[in-house]
C-alpha cells in the first residue's frame, strides 16, 4: 500500500473516531440552574443547589462589602446572599429587585446567590463546560435559552471556587 494511501486511511479513521467521541461527549449532560441578576446571566450545577426561590427576609449586614446583599434564614440557619456581578467585578446593567435566590451548599457551608429572576433547569453537554474550563477560564460561558436573541450568555459558576474565595470566608484559590 502506498504511503500516501496509508496516511489517508489513518486520517479518515482518526476523524471518524473524533466524531464518535464528540457524539458520546455530547450525550453526557449536566443539569444547570440558570438565573439573572444585574443584567448578567449565571448558572450553577443543580447538584450544589439546596434551595431556589423567593427570599423571604433579607437583612442588610452592617459595615459589609457591596457584594454581600444581606442574610436570610433557611431552616434555622443563617445564609449570606451574594451579589455575583459585584463579587466578580462585572458592570451592573440596570437596577432590579433581588427578590429571589439560589442557595448552594459545599460541605457544611451554604451561600446564597441573589437573583432577579430564576430561569429554570437546563441540561447542558458537560463537555462544553469542560472545554471552556480547559481553555483557562475560571468562569466558563455557555448559552442558555432565553434573552432577546433567543439565547442568554451565562457564566457557569464553579461552586467549590466560590466557597474557596477568601472574601467569602474560604481558604483561598477562589475568586
Amino acid at each position, binding site marked *: 500500500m502506498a504511503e500516501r494511501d496509508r496516511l489517508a486511511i489513518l486520517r479518515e479513521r482518526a476523524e471518524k473516531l473524533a466524531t464518535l467521541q464528540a457524539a458520546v461527549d455530547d450525550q453526557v449532560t449536566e443539569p444547570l440552574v440558570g438565573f439573572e441578576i444585574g443584567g448578567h446571566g449565571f448558572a450553577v450545577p443543580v447538584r450544589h443547589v439546596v434551595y431556589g426561590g423567593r427570599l423571604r427576609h433579607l437583612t*442588610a449586614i452592617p459595615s459589609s462589602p457591596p457584594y454581600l446583599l444581606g442574610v436570610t*434564614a433557611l431552616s434555622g440557619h443563617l*445564609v449570606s446572599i451574594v451579589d455575583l456581578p459585584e463579587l466578580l467585578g462585572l458592570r451592573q446593567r*440596570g*437596577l432590579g429587585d*433581588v427578590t429571589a435566590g439560589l442557595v448552594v451548599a459545599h460541605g457544611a457551608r451554604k451561600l446564597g446567590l441573589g437573583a432577579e429572576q430564576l430561569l429554570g433547569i437546563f441540561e447542558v453537554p458537560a463537555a462544553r463546560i469542560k472545554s471552556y474550563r480547559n481553555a483557562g477560564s475560571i468562569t466558563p460561558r455557555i448559552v442558555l435559552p432565553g434573552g432577546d436573541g433567543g439565547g442568554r450568555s451565562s457564566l457557569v459558576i464553579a461552586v467549590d471556587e466560590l466557597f474557596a474565595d477568601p472574601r467569602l470566608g*474560604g481558604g483561598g484559590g477562589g475568586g
Partner: protein
Amino acid sequence: MDELLRQVLPVFLVEVREQAQRIAAALLLMEREPSSIPSEIEELFRQAHSLKGSSASLGILELEALAHELETALTGVRRHQQPLTRELVDLGLRAVDAAQERAQGLGDESEAGLAKVVAITAELRALVERSPLPEQSQRSTEPARASRQSLPASELSGPLGESVAPPPDAEAPKPDPALLVDNPDIIRVPTARLLDFERRTDDLRTLHGRMERHAAELHHAGQALERLGRELRRLWPKAAVAAGALSAPDELRQVQRTLRALRHDVIVDLDLLLSTSTELSESLRAMRLVPAALLTQPLLRAVREACKQAEHEADLELVGDQVRVDRVLLEELRGPLLHLVRNAVDHGIEPSAVREAVGKPARGRIEVRLQQSGGRVVITVRDDGRGIDVAAVRRQAVARGLITEAAAETLEPREVHRLLLLPGFSTAAEVTTLSGRGVGLDVVHSVVQRLQGELQIESQLGQGAAFTLSVPMTIVAARVMLIEEQGGVYGVPQTAVERIVLASPKELTTVGKGLVYVADGEALPVARLSHVLGGRIVEWPRQLPLLILRHGETRVALGCERLEGESELVLQPLPAELLKNRLLSAVAMLPSGAALFVLSPAALAAATVEKSTVETRLAQRTVLVADDSITTRSLLRSVLEGGGYRVRTAADGEEALRLLRSESVDLVVSDVRMPRLDGYSLVSKLREDPRTARLPVVLFSGADSDDDRRRGVAAGADAYLTKGAFERGQLIDVVTGLLQGAA
C-alpha cells in the same frame, strides 16, 4: 468494617473517651494524693475492665490488649506490692491518649493510632517484665479467659501474636450494657445535634410570628365582614326578613361568629405554641449546662506536663468546679485556660531552689477559681510565682517599636500588663515548647473577646500574677438591648450597657478634636452608631439616646436614633464569610424571620473612640428614598451617602408621607410602583401640601415609556429616571442639581 460495628461505633467512641478521662483522672489523683490509691485504683480497674470488655465484644483486639496490659501493670499497685511510680503514671496517661486516638481512627475507618497502641502495649508489657510480681515472673501460655469467651482458642492472642494471660484475679469483664443493649435510662446525643435542634425551635417562634399576623388578618376580615353585614342588612328586603327566611345578612352573621370563634381558637393555640417552644428552648439550653469540673483533668495534666518540661514543681487547685457552664462555652475556654496554666508554670513559678531561697514553699501553687457573678462566669488563674516584671515588659515594648521610651515611662502598671496581649509579644529569653513565642496571650485575649468577655491582668513582682477571664454564662442566649439607627435594628449585649441617658447636642462638649459626654465626672468619647458602622456623619437631633457602654476599662457613649427595648435572644455564630467583620459578634433570628445582628462591645468601644470627632455635629442635606425593594433602598442609600447626603428610607408612599410630616427632608427619590401609595400619588399629595409643594422629587421607575414620563411630570415630579438605565453618577448629578436649584 462490618455494619454492626459501624452502627455501634459512635457510642463506643464516646465511651472510650469517658473511660480514658476517668482513668487519667484516677492516675493523676493517685500521684498527687497517695492516700487516694485504695479507692481510685478500684475505679481505674473498673474503667479498664469496661474498656477491655467493650473492645473485645466489638473485636477491637488492640484496645482490648492495651486495657489488659494496663491492668497487669497496675496490679502490683492495687495489691500494695508496688509503688505508683512516675514512669507508670506517664505510661498510663500515654496509654489512654493512645486509646482515644485509636478509637478516633476507627471512627474515621483508618489505621490512625494503631501503631501507637501496639507500641504502648509493648512498653507496658516490658515494664511488667522488668519488675514482675511474684506470680507474674512466668507468663502463662494459657489463653486469656472471660474476655475471649466468644472467640475460638486459636484466636486468643495479643496484637503481637503472643498468647496473653489475664491477671489471675481479674473478673470477667462484662460487655458494656450501654453498648450492646438498649439502655432505657440514657440517650447520648452529640452537642452539635442539640444545637441544631435548638435552632429548629427558633423556626417555631418564626411560625408563631407568622400566625400572629394571620390572626390579625382574621380580625380585619371579621371587621370588614361586619361592615358588609351592616350594609347588607340595610339593603336587604324587609319582606324577606319578615317572612323568617334565612337571609344573606343572617348567613353573614353566622360567618362572622365562625370567624370570631376561629380567631379565638387561633390565639389560644398561639399561646400554647409560644409557651411550648419557649419551654423546649429552655430545656434544651439547660441540657447543655455541664459542671466546670470537666476541666479538672485536662488542667491537671497540663500542669503536670508543663512542670516536667520546665523542671519546676507546682500543684494545681481547681476551686468552684461545681459551677455549671454551657458546654459549648466550656470547650471554647479549654484552650485559653490550658495556655494560662502552662504560662504560669513556665513564666511564673520559679525553680524550687529559688523559691526556697526567698522563703516560699518549694512547690509552686496555681489556683484556677471559677465563680458565677450575675450572668457571667468569672475564672481567675492565679500563681504565687515571680510576677510580671513591668520594667522588662516596658523595655521589650520599646525594643519592638510598639511605643517610645518616653511613652513607656508614662504607662501605669496595668497598662503595661495589657502590652502582653499584643500579638508576638514575649519577654521570654528563649522560646520553649511551652511558651515564649508570644503567641499564646493574644490568642487567649481574642478568644475571650469573641466570647464577649474581658481579660484582666494583675500582678505583684515577687508575689505572683492573676489572669481573670469574665465571660457570659452562655454564648447561646443573651439579653440584648435593641437599638434602631438609620433604618436598621441592632443588638448590643446588655452586659456591656452600663446605662442609658437622653442627651441633647448642648450636653456634648469638645475636648481637643474629640466629642465627649461627661458622665460621673469622666469625659466619654461619643459617636453615632451610623458613623461607627461606616456610614456618613449625621446630624444630632434635639434629644438622642446615648448608651453608656463599658468594655474592660473603656467607657464610651454611643448615640442611636431609638431604643426598641430589651429582649432575650438565642444567638447563632456568624457564618464564615462574616467572621472578618469585627463589628459583629453574633446573630439572632427574630420571630418575624428577619435577622438581628448583635454588635461586638469591644469593636463598638474601639470604633467609638476612633470616630468621636467634632465633625459628628455637622449638618447635611437629607434625601428620602421611598421604594418597596430593600435591595434598591440599600443601593440608593449607599450611592447617596457616598455623595455626601444623609439618607432616610421608606418602604412605600404612606410611610414616606408619615416620615415627611415629622422630619425635615431636602429631596425625595421615589419608586413609582409601590403598595398602599404609589409614586405618582405621593408626588401629587406633596404638591397639594404648602409645606412640601416645592420639595424636589425624583421618580425612579422600571417603566420607560413616554407616557410614563409624561405622567410623572404631570404629577409634579422634577425628574424621571429609569432603573433599566441606572447609573450611579447620573443619580448624584440629578440630585445635586435639583438641590442647588432649590437652595
